[in-house]
């Protein structure tokens, strides 16, 4: 019985692994197609699916307690809040890029004493 369970486990792991590799190659391939905004969507969606597989099957989120699932969801939700609300600012703020400068503006220093001026 135990032996079977181990084999079952191993089967799930191997299948998940194969799916993950396939998704990775899909992601790679999609980057070579000109999908416009679809490129970033495809990349993120595939990454999300791969992460979900690792979370659900490898990290055994499906068998974990409700508390653990809430922990995972809350962390993700908090990050999404950070992205979303700062995104409100970035989406509605016009920015005029500063004149691009290669040389650094200020000299390098540590603590209270400026190092010798570096010219680049």
């Amino acid at each position: 019985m135990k032996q079977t369970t181990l084999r079952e486990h191993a089967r799930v792991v191997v299948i998940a692994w194969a799916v993950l590799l396939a998704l990775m190659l899909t992601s790679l391939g999609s980057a070579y197609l000109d999908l416009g905004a679809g490129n970033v969507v495809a990349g993120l969606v595939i990454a999300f699916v791969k992460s979900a597989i690792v979370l659900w099957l490898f990290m055994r989120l499906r068998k974990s307690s409700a508390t653990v699932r809430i922990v995972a969801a809350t962390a993700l939700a908090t990050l999404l809040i950070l992205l979303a609300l700062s995104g409100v600012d970035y989406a509605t703020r016009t920015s005029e890029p500063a004149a691009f400068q290669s040389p650094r503006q200020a000299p390098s220093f540590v603590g209270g004493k400026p190092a010798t001026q570096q010219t680049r």
Partner: protein
Amino acid sequence: MSAIAAPALAAADDAPRTAQLGMWIFLGTEVLFFGGLFVAYAVGRAHWPHGFAVASRHTDVVLGTVNTAVLLTSSAIVAFAVACADHPAQRRWTALALWATAALGVVFLAIKGVEYAHEWSEHLFPLADFALTEPGAELFWVLYFVMTILHSVHLLIGIVGVAAFARATGAGKSWPTPGRVDTMALYWHFVDIVWIVLYPLLYLVERHA
């Protein structure tokens, strides 16, 4: 009246559940830790789509893809190790799987080192002699190095941890209980997930040009 006089302590029996919950909470903190960098990336890419695309094309997509496969495989192997750990008769397999996981982690770091060496010689480090002049390209490479170095540090910690588990399991020590192996594996899987997200963000911005 609901006076209950039962002793409060169940901690000893419940150590696996406690440790598992603790690790998940810790991983939650790591999501927010890396999350700040993802915000910086999102802002940068939204502002400089062309610069990020140009910069991303200079990453080594072959090595990056190989590395992704390496980590995905290592996750599968450590998941297998966790399954084996539930069966004391399979102790040798558990130890082998754990060693293989750690070894793949080392392979990842080695490949990353090769990438860094190439990038150094191509002047892609965001220093005085940075090679790309496209606005935003330097920002991409700043984020590339901060994110991958931080990820590598976390991976290194994972390698050390998994190797310690491998050694103790192989030697028949009692402290690597199935619960603890599972807890260690959770950390490893998380490091893998971070890379899963980094892969398209760093290597696949716009390869079709």
